[in-house]
């Protein structure tokens, strides 16, 4: 403590200041990996108690773990890496968080200020490298600005449309010798950043009128409802109106998956009923969804007779690919609660007979080709079908697990068959489609919810992209389940090659080179379990899920010939043009 102008002010080094500012921001967990440029910061971490640091095995793992933590909690994930390769290794994870609008702060060490630009050892222009995939970034020029930069970074990352923020910190700025007065700002004023708040009342009123006039409405809800904690309001709205709801891949859990009003996921591997209902809808209420190309299929053919209401916190998402008839910029929470208020006081009611007819039509679609009205996969052979593995896990975990996934067929099967009733339970890389996401994300979720069941659904391809994190699970005792749907090929790549390249399997098979995952898991100190036959599936899964104190790698050999259906016809297809099986098309 030092007396400056009559006030007691604490003097701290840049490194200590950074760690203290993180504490003052409420951070209690960091995922990271040390290295030369970050050593002063790491020393500051060693000398404090408030923040726990999880040492990963690769910086990509740190970003995915922080991402999983953020998705499961709604808090901002924090990552600490060193300069050069440490920073560039984090890039994939930053891009993953950016595409899915996940709040994250990434602190990267940088070479000393006077070495910047000299091609110094482990130097890379992190602010430049990360520029297209961050919401914002800071290069810290002197220690005194650290508290404010940290405050700003968390504010930017977590408000408006959330996203990753990079703080690049040159080593000299954190040196332990020079000490400066520390004060954490209580308030922030940023003239250039005002995140959207409430929606425009006039627009909301228009939207409510349009909704009430609908004869064939569909509510299309995306990741923004999960991220914006709008699930309860969305559910209340849908149930009040008795309108059907479909969720995007990112939005699963935003509306209860087992409710009868839920049509399933929409889009490329969406259900027949969801895609067909969208195509025929006259009013679409899009909430926190961005009309991604994996949802709309060919934009010109998208929902030809629909008027679109689009609620989003990011104005740039509105009318980007599909023009909104009633655009509303605002947080999902405030707009939905305003809508509910207006609905409650409105004299009009939805056209009941039209809605009854609409439901009759939807139920007919469900009956014909719905994903949940009859098994849409073979159930007679000895081969284990991937769909039934997911259904079994749903049953055993009572639909209440946190499920992370990697990318490919297993991801789509999980999205289709693990019906999420709650938000923040389904954790996957939707926008970027990052293989290797699942395992580190599961570890991040387990850090947040140590008592909860956490399952990483993966494939033998994806799991090998961040397999090193099995070691992190050992060090921090993070007993997650790893459920590998092993089809001995890059299943989704193979599916496309079979459908569009006359079965030429270019580099999608491993030719007997797969590791023995059981031995591999055991080498890291975990349990391994292999399931090869259909009749042992349930029993063995139950056995595996009964184990609560060990990480279990469950290697399930599934039918390698199975494809994910429905699958929208591309290119030039509309929402309702789908392959329903290898031979059946709408």
């Amino acid at each position, binding site marked *: 403590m030092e007396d400056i102008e009559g006030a007691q002010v604490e003097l701290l080094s840049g490194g200590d200041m950074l760690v203290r500012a993180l504490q003052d921001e409420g951070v209690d967990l960091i995922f990271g990996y040390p290295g030369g440029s970050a050593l002063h910061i790491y020393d500051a971490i060693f000398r404090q108690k408030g923040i726990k640091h999880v040492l990963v095995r690769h910086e990509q793992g740190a970003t995915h773990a922080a991402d999983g933590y953020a998705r499961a909690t709604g808090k901002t994930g924090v990552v600490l890496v060193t300069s050069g390769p440490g920073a560039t290794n984090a890039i994939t994870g930053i891009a993953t968080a950016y595409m899915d609008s996940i709040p994250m702060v990434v602190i990267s060490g940088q070479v000393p200020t006077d070495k910047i630009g000299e091609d110094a050892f482990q130097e890379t222009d992190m602010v430049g490298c990360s520029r297209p995939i961050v919401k914002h970034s800071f290069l810290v020029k002197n220690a005194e600005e650290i508290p404010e930069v940290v405050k700003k970074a968390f504010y930017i990352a977590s408000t408006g449309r959330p996203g990753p923020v990079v703080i690049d910190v040159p080593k000299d700025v954190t040196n332990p010798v020079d000490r400066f007065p520390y004060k954490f700002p209580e308030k922030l004023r940023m003239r250039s950043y005002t995140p959207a708040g409430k929606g425009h009342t006039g627009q909301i009123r228009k939207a409510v009128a349009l909704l009430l006039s609908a004869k064939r409405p569909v509510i299309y809800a995306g990741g923004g409802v999960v991220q914006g904690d709008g699930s309860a309001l969305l559910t209340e709205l849908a149930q009040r109106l008795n309108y059907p709801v479909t969720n995007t891949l990112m939005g699963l859990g935003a509306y209860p998956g087992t409710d009868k009003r839920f049509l399933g996921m929409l889009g490329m591997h969406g259900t027949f009923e969801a895609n067909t209902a969208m195509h025929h809808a006259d009013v679409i209420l899009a909430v926190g969804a961005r009309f991604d190309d994996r949802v709309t299929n060919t934009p010109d053919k998208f929902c030809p007779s629909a008027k679109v209401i689009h609620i989003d916190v990011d*104005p740039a998402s509105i009318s980007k690919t599909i023009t909104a008839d009633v655009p509303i910029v605002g947080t999902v929470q405030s707009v939905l609660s305003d809508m509910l208020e207006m609905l409650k006081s409105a004299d009009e009611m939805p056209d009941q007979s039209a809605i009854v007819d609409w439901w009759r039509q939807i139920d007919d679609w469900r009956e014909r080709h719905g994903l949940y009205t009859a098994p849409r996969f073979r159930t007679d052979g000895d081969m284990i079908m991937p769909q039934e593995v997911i259904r079994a896990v749903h049953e055993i975990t009572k639909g209440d697990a946190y499920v992370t996934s990697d990318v490919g067929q297993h991801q789509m099967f999980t999205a289709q068959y693990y019906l999420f009733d709650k938000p923040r339970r389904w954790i996957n890389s939707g926008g970027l489609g990052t293989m290797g996401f699942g395992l580190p994300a599961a570890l991040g979720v387990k850090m947040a919810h140590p008592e909860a069941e956490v399952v990483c659904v993966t494939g033998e391809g994806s799991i090998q992209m961040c397999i090193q994190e099995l070691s992190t699970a050992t060090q921090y005792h993070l007993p997650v389940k790893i459920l590998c749907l092993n089809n001995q090929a890059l299943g989704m790549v193979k599916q496309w090659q079979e459908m569009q390249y006359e079965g030429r399997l270019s580099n999608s098979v491993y030719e007997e080179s797969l590791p023995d995952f059981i031995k591999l898991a055991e080498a890291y100190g975990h349990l391994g379990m292999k399931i090869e036959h259909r009749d042992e599936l349930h029993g063995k899964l139950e056995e595996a899920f009964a184990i609560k104190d060990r990480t279990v790698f469950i290697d399930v050999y599934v039918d390698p010939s199975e494809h994910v259906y429905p699958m929208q016809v591309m290119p030039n297809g509309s929402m309702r043009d789908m392959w329903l099986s290898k031979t059946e098309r709408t």
Partner: protein
Amino acid sequence: MRRIISVLMENEPGALSRVVGLFSQRGYNIESLTVAPTEDATLSRLTLTTIGDDHKIEQITKNLNKLIDVVKLVDLTEGSHIERELLLVKVRATGAQRDEVKRSVDIFRGQIVDVTSNMYTVQVSGTSEKLDAFLQALGEHTIMEVVRSGVSGIARGEKVLSV
């Protein structure tokens, strides 16, 4: 359609690269770009011209607004405005050409700002169209070097772009 977008942004290192990066990242076109600090040293004024339909321009302005460093912006072409560009050109001027060039400069209300026995350096300002016309009038064979500032602009009337 050609648009002039005027941006008021934080005078911070890296701010310009974010703007330029946005354009290349999203496949937008920049025809010209000019930037300098304003009377308030914490702010820079950036003017860029781009070409696109209404939908594209709307996306450009929305995405520019999303950049944290951008404080305010205006599409000047939406209203009545004044635009200026500065041209410096070195022109071969020998013999009879000397008078010829001088006449063209007068017609376009330019100034000869430097002279050698073989060359004039001419300064002209105005709209980009006027500068194009002047260069055309000089004729290609007399032009040795051209430098243009890019478009700057300001709204007519009492409308002001400030914090």
